């Protein structure tokens, strides 16, 4: 077990996601404590003191985001849980939706009380089926038990929740696109200013937090900020749900305490690389983070600052382990095809740049690459850094320059020899080796 567990700290059974089991684990008692003995500002103070960072990818201090909301402005405020989980390699929020939906709901009720939110939303990606059904069932259970609605637990706090299903768009995981989607429109990101905590959903103050981020709130309010800070490390308190996949023996969702060594996690907890191969590199936290080679992670621990010092990020916690012999050109091709497919098309650098990147790498893979194509990939990536409405342009750029910085030779090889340095097949396990059908 990679450290102490704050969320995945109960045995998963056929009923552990249901209200009765959740209550038996102490569920909804923290909500009662919050409503009966704390003021909304106290909750925000506790969350701020805990040092809780966002788990959606940006690692923004949660308390600081909450504190922007003016509790006395007389306007409706909204809270949205981001369950869009579209970042490739990331599949950890679904664990909470499937196995601990009430933990999310109780946390959202506490957060709604802290932020004076009357209507809360969970934005869940449209493709999710079981996570959606489990969550919706939990919502119905919570309503029936009186945790939603008016006069909750005998207080004058009222809160309603709607589970809003997306319909297939990665960009809707971006906070401003998410709320525009809830408004019933195309999920197009918005320029800032204004910040969403000032003008968000239907132009009202809105807080958007990742599902896992919110799931931590109940524990913080129950046990206090100090107890939370005793888990993890100073700059990264608590834990991270890590979804790990790729060329691994035991891919899956693990809760990793911050400070835990990465290599130990991969080799011991996840069983190491398939087929006795060695690790080549990892995508640390979703494909929008820069790859780190096996050498670079040798003494790396789960630590936001440590990853930044290595030139990458912890991101959304979606780790992909890549075995030696994997063609990084083909890997980047899959990533660029994804970004091209998902670009919303609003702003010039991303709309045109994603197509440029994708078509350039397609041409390299087709054996028609030119020497200058590598510089084109770098230049287009840099031209998307900090110039776009949302972070997707930057993300594609990071993925590209990250791989090119460490594996440029593979690209040069393909351009010169018109084929991969390896066999070009991404599936290194003993699966049926049919010709690639990209």
């Amino acid at each position: 077990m990679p450290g102490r567990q704050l969320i995945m700290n109960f045995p998963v059974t056929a009923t552990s996601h249901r209200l009765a089991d959740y209550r038996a684990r102490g569920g909804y008692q923290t909500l009662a404590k919050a409503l009966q003995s704390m003021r909304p500002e106290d909750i925000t103070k506790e969350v701020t003191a805990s040092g809780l960072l966002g788990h959606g990818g940006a690692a923004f201090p949660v308390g600081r985001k909450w504190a922007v909301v003016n509790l006395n402005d007389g306007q409706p405020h909204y809270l949205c849980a981001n369950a869009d989980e579209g970042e490739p390699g990331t599949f950890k929020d679904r664990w909470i939706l499937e196995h601990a939906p009430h933990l999310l709901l109780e946390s959202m009720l506490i957060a709604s009380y802290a932020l004076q939110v009357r209507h809360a939303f969970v934005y869940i990606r449209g493709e999710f089926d079981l996570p959606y059904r489990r969550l919706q069932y939990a919502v119905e259970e919570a309503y029936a038990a009186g945790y939603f609605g008016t006069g909750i637990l005998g207080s004058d706090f009222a809160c309603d929740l709607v589970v809003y299903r997306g319909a297939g768009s990665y960009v809707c995981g971006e906070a401003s696109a998410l709320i525009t989607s809830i408004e019933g429109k195309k999920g197009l990101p918005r320029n800032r200013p204004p910040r969403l905590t000032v003008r968000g959903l239907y132009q009202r103050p809105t807080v958007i937090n990742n599902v896992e981020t919110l799931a931590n709130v109940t524990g913080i309010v129950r046990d206090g900020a100090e107890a939370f800070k005793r888990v993890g490390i100073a700059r990264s308190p608590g834990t991270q749900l890590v979804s790990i996949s790729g060329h691994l023996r035991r891919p899956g969702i693990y809760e990793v305490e911050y400070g835990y060594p990465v290599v130990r996690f991969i080799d011991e907890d996840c069983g190491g690389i398939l087929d006795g191969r060695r690790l080549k590199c990892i995508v640390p936290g979703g494909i929008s983070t820069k790859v780190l080679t096996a050498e670079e992670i040798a003494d790396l621990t789960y630590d936001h600052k440590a990853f930044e010092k290595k030139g990458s990020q912890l991101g959304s916690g979606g780790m992909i382990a890549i075995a030696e012999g994997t063609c990084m050109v083909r890997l980047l091709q899959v990533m660029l095809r994804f970004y091209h497919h998902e670009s919303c098309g609003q702003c010039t650098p991303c709309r045109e740049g994603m197509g440029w990147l994708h078509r350039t790498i397609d041409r390299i893979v087709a054996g028609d690459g030119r020497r200058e194509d590598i510089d084109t990939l770098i230049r287009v990536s840099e031209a998307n850094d900090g110039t776009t409405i949302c972070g997707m342009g930057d993300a594609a750029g990071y993925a590209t320059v990250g791989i090119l910085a460490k594996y440029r030779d593979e690209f040069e090889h393909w351009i010169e020899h018109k084929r991969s340095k390896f066999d070009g097949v991404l599936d290194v396990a003993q699966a049926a080796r049919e010709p690639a059908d990209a």
Partner: protein
Amino acid sequence: MSTALGPVSDALVLAPVPNPQRRDSMRHLQPEFEAMKARYPAGFESSLTLPCLRRIQEERGYVAGEDIDWLVEYLGVPRIQIEEVLSYYTQFRRAPIGRWHLQACRNVSCSMRGAEGLIGYLSRKLGIASGQTTADGRFTLTKVECLGSCGTAPVLMVNDSYHENMSAERVDALLEQLR
């Protein structure tokens, strides 16, 4: 707010896409839409666009022009908003497809665990390319991006359900079931 809590089955749902020949109006869904509207704050009519379209598509198999006309009238949103939404989100369609929509993820982790070979296998077995429907109207094959289930790659989404840890053998067994 109270609802009846029926049992929720975790079993994979194998429900086919409705008959594309269906021509009747979807106005019988209005009571459901009214119930949905009641859960939203006042003034959120526009928000109902996505859930109503999803429900209509569940009933009809796709969204027809007359459905758009009705929603414009019912929700009071501009017609262009609905047209834009239908064209922007990948899950909405304005034309019928086969009974079984096979959506194969081709993103990074799935590709690393055999998705590319699997897609090729499906394509050859069904005799169609991605984006096409078999002549008997049974299967439509599309390639999709990350479904958020990378740990159980490769993943095949069939209509609304995730089929995980797929392989050629499991694909054969699955196709047998899908009549």
